[in-house]
């Protein structure tokens, strides 16, 4: 599977089902430990089996509670489940309180469940490079379904689409009038809309607005978003929610090219991001080491140079891989 090469010990442990080894690998991915690269490389051929479902939506709509309800439903169906729950890091202290576990009920002796909380650590958009890699580790460990719960999203937080093969946008009644649903961003990425807290008045109206939105215009990639109502509290609609998710996954599998295309799109984004992150980091390092940068900074503040001109000059200086800056 890996071209005859032996798997690194950590990769072997994950494949064997060693939960602690898996947890420790996740930590290394999260902290951007460069030594994890060979392990990820070795595990890559063993991934691609899990179905990755993202749940996103504004804060407080009940994403964790829905994940909890889905977890029980999926375990009853005999599926093993990995959960990645992302919560925000403080932009001030860097710390965070990751509280999604509070709502997750599970039998601690059940090896068919693995739950991991992740702090966003300054990565914008809720989910990013690290999430993708954590999902792959869970995939390699053999979990059938991986549920990714994003941080509470805003109108433009659509990154989950780059991680999950099915994106569920969770909403609640009375989040706004139907014009909200016409706006760009969050509403565009849903494969499934879930109106949670449907025990509250207004759920019907919200679901109707969303159904109207879904039926308007052309279906993206041939799929029209499905709208379901659920109440995580009352445990109603959970089966419908899963059926809608499974239907989208089945739609992707119906034509192998669809699944391939959906994956290609995500990998394309990932590769650009990986390269961009390295370039950006290298640029940041070089800039701080370059005295000309400091001078330009002063010039911009003193209004002698405008920001675009300064950026042009910096860019021109650093374009070539060999710069004299470092040797000075």
């Amino acid at each position: 599977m890996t071209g005859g090469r032996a798997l690194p010990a950590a990769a072997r442990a994950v494949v064997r089902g060693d939960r602690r080894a898996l947890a420790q690998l996740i930590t290394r991915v999260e902290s951007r430990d460069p030594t994890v690269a060979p392990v990820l490389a070795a595990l890559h051929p063993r991934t691609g089996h899990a179905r990755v479902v993202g749940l996103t939506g504004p804060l407080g709509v009940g994403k964790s509670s829905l994940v909890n309800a889905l977890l029980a439903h999926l375990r009853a169906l005999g599926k093993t489940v990995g959960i990645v729950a992302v919560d925000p890091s403080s932009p001030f202290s860097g710390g965070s309180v990751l509280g999604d576990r509070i709502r997750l009920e599970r039998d601690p002796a059940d090896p068919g469940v693995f739950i991991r909380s992740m702090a966003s650590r300054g990565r914008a958009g809720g989910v990013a490079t690290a999430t993708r890699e954590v999902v792959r580790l869970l995939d390699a460990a053999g979990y059938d379904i991986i549920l990714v719960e994003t941080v509470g999203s805003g109108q433009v937080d659509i990154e989950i689409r780059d991680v999950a093969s099915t994106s569920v946008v969770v909403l609640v009644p009375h989040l706004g009038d139907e014009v909200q649903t016409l706006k760009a961003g969050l509403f565009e990425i849903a494969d499934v809309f879930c109106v949670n807290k449907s025990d509250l008045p207004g759920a019907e109206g919200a679901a109707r607005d969303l159904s109207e939105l879904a039926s308007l215009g052309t279906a993206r990639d041939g799929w029209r978003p499905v709208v379901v109502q659920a109440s995580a509290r009352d445990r109603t609609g959970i089966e419908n929610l899963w059926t809608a998710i499974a239907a989208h996954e089945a739609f992707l599998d119906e034509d192998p090219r669809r699944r391939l295309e959906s994956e290609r799109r995500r990998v394309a984004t990932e590769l650009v991001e990986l390269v961009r992150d390295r370039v950006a980091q290298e640029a940041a390092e070089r800039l701080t080491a370059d005295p000309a940068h400091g001078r330009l900074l002063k010039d911009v503040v003193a209004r002698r140079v405008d920001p675009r001109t300064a950026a042009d000059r910096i860019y021109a200086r650093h374009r070539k891989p060999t710069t004299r800056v470092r040797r000075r």
Partner: protein
Amino acid sequence: MGEPPAATPIRVLIAKPGLDGHDRGAKVVARALRDAGMEVIYAGLRQTPEEIVESAIEEDVDLIGLSCLSGAHMALFPRVLKLLRARKVRDVPVFAGGIIPDDDAKRLRRIGIRAVFGPGTSLEEIVRTARGIARHRT
């Protein structure tokens, strides 16, 4: 974008074993540790020792904080330690807080609880201690 590969924050699990509902202390401590730059996995109320240990393993934490105000600490805390050992988790220290009589605190320290905080402990002291005893990644 391109933020530096910052030092990994200390990950700490805060959990309340037992049946009492007094989680204010645990929340205040969680908040203080957050403000000190740690990643706090807050597991909340009524956790069984088994759940706590499984969470600690899955979250790969560097430290576990237990809070108990029901009086059952002498049954619950040692059970967490025992389960950790049974799962071969030997490098993750445990600290505790709650209404814990001095004699009990002494006994808990003897069996391996690294620190016991009673009412009135300053948050500063808790943060300092947590930083000091947390597992350090190499």
